[in-house]
């Protein structure tokens, strides 16, 4: 039980990864896919930040010139800052594509499906 709790962040990483990945794979709505992608990426952020945490440590911003305190690891934080920015850039570009798809096809799901089904696609 204790071991379970010690690794709780990593369990949550796995669960979030699964939720996001499922939405990306299984949902037909394109915006939902992008939301799934966000969850998927957030899981990875959690993985990195969790591995940088040190027990009893504090944020790697030195207060009052006290350089000898215990600090958590700054490197994963730097990596994830970059990754978050990459995530929002991908989201913005993806949404722009979705808007264009909506304009070109009149719908944002099942674009690859055969034409026969397009009747069922109109809002009910």
């Amino acid at each position: 039980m204790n071991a379970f709790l010690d690794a709780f962040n990593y369990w949550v990483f796995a669960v979030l990864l699964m939720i996001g990945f499922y939405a990306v794979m299984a949902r037909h709505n394109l915006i939902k896919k992008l939301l799934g992608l966000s969850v998927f990426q957030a899981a990875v952020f959690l993985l990195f930040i969790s591995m940088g945490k040190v027990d009893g440590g504090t944020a790697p911003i030195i207060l009052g010139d006290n350089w000898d305190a215990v600090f958590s690891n700054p490197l994963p934080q730097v990596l994830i800052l970059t990754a978050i920015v990459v995530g929002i850039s991908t989201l913005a570009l993806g949404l722009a594509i979705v808007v264009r798809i909506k304009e070109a096809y009149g719908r944002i799901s099942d674009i690859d499906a055969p034409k026969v089904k397009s009747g069922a696609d109109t809002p009910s």
Partner: protein
Amino acid sequence: MTGILSGFILSLAVLTALGAMRARNLFASVMLMGIFSLLMAAEFLLLDAPDVALTEAAVGAGISTVLLLSALALTGEEEKPQPRPPWIGLAAVIIVTAIVFYAVKDKPMLGDPNTPVQTHVAAEYFPMTREFVDIPNVVTAVLASFRGYDTLGEVIVVLTAAIGVLFLIGPEAPVGRKSPPTLRQASEGLKHHQPVRIVGKIAIPFILLFALYVQFHGEYSPGGGFQAGALFAAAIILYGLLEGRPAAASIIPTRILRIMAAGGALIYGGVGVVTLVLGGNFLEYTVLNDDPVVAQQFGIIVIEAGVGITVAGVLLAIYHAFAARGET
């Protein structure tokens, strides 16, 4: 205490993510994703990563909510029910999950100070920062100096996103034939909500001030160019929400936004070119001044300014592109 709180927040995050993925109404999903971002940001803070928390909040809960809502306004918000369960997707997910769970079993425990992650490269950053850069925020030192090349890449990624959005749905982009001919008038904002308007307008200068604080205090406290740029953009977006998008565009015209987006990246890259010309390696700030520590600090301030300008320009350009699409 923080352990329990962290576990609680993570549980809520899982619940929120599940809800967001299950909801059939996309608007509900977007709202839940906003909560999800806030939860992740709170968790990052508990894991001693205030810089990341600030960014996640500004980006996840702020900017991406605005972008998603603008996109929803253009695409509609109901998700159609899906006819058949996607077995291949489900199978892939189950396999990946099984693997990941298997991996988790072996991971070093959370918070152990003796793992390679803590002892190898990262531990050296503290004495190195103290000796060569001498700023309190080690995250900023690593971000802007030791791994400054990555951050240049990050700025370029943001710029690429802006180029993409402008290319796809900017003013010159073609409009598909399936879109209704006149979608709506140019946004007039929340003019009829008088109290909102007054309070919002009072808030704007303070947000701008706060953005400047985050920008220039980034060496001493959580923050830096990216967060400041996002907050700056948020202030202008707030003005656009209150007074209508054209009003926001008249404060900073889209032409200027383009210059900001490209100019910030050029400032960052320009610092690298200057260091080359002065005989150093690319992005070796040390050559910028006789005193290497002062030179590092100077370099960091300049490139952070570049980051801030690019991010503000890019986010605003993207906001305008989405909001203006469909205006008559």
